[in-house]
C-alpha cells in the first residue's frame, strides 16, 4: 500500500480523533507512541507529518522524523506555552529548519484548511 498523500499524526488520542473527524480517517494514520510513529515514518512516504509538542524531547523527535521523511511537510501542534520552543525548530538554520511550520491548538478554520492533505 502506498502512503503517498497520507498524513501521519503523532498525538494523544483526543487530538488524533479531532484530526480524524476533520480530515477523514482514510487519509490519516494516528499514533500516540513516538517509536511506533518513527517506524511507520521509516516504512513509507508521507505527505504530512503532524507531531504534538507534548512529547518529551520534542526537538530530537522532530529531527528524527525529518531524517526519515525529508520531503514531508513536518508540522508541530503546540499550546501557547510551548510556542517559544517550537518557534526555534521552525527557524531556518544552515541546513534549513527542522520543521516546516507550527500551529497553536486549537486550530482555526483556516488552519484546518491549510493542514488538509494537498
Amino acid at each position: 500500500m502506498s502512503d503517498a498523500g497520507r498524513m501521519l499524526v503523532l498525538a494523544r488520542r483526543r487530538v488524533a480523533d479531532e484530526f480524524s473527524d476533520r480530515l477523514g480517517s482514510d487519509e490519516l494514520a494516528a499514533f500516540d507512541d513516538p517509536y511506533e510513529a518513527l517506524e511507520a515514518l521509516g516504512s513509507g512516504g508521507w505527505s504530512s507529518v503532524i507531531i504534538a509538542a507534548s512529547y518529551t524531547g520534542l526537538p530530537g523527535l522532530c529531527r528524527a522524523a525529518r531524517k526519515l521523511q525529508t520531503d514531508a511537510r513536518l508540522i508541530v501542534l503546540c499550546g501557547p506555552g510551548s510556542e517559544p520552543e517550537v518557534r526555534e525548530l521552525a527557524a531556518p538554520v544552515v541546513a534549513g529548519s527542522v520543521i516546516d511550520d507550527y500551529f497553536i491548538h486549537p486550530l482555526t478554520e483556516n488552519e484546518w484548511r491549510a493542514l488538509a492533505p494537498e
Partner: protein
Amino acid sequence: MGDNGKSRRGRKIIILSRDAAFARGALEGGSDASRCCLRVTSPYEAAAELIEDAPAALIVDLRCLTPGDLPLIEMARRGDVEVLAVGAIPLGVATSDLSGVRLAVLGHLDVLLDCPESQPLAGAPATVVPRAASADAADLPTMSRWVAKTPIDRVETPRTKTPVAVQDPQDDRAIETPRTDPIPSPGDSPDELLTREELTALLEDD
C-alpha cells in the same frame, strides 16, 4: 537478521549521548579505523538511525535513557543490533528491560566491540548502581565513572575530610599516634563560645 546482515552494515556505530566527551572517550584508542561513529543526542534520533540503516552497534549513555525510551532497546534487539550501555541504570528501568544489552565501562567499549557477543565479558567489569536519570547532562562528569553504592540523597555530601597522605604501614615511624586529648580552642564547643577575657570584658560593660 543474521550474520550476513551484520557484515553488510559495515562498521557504523551509533553513540547516543548528549555529552561530546563521552563520545570521544567511547572509542578512544580504537584500533579499527574503518569504524564510522555517529553521535546522536536524542533516543529518537538513535531510533531513526536504526530504522534507516541498521548500524553494527549502538552505544547508549544511560543518562539519556528513560523508561519511555525502552522501545529503542527493543528496536535494536529486533534488528539484531548489538547494544552496549554505559553508566548507571536509570530509575524506572529494570535490568530485565535491558536484556541482551551489555553493560560496560567507557574505556572497555573498543575491546567489547571486537569481542563476539557470545563471549563472557571477562575483564570488563560493569557495576550497576540505580540512580536517577539526570535532566541536565552538562552537569554530569564527562567520563563514565563507577560510583560507590551511595543513597541518592547523600550524593552531594560536602567534602569535609582533608586528604591524608598514604603511608607505608610497615614503617612504624611514619604512623603517628592520634591525639586522644585534643586541645580545645575557643568557639569549638557551644559551652566555650567566648574566651575568659571576652567574657570578663562583657561583664565589665554591664
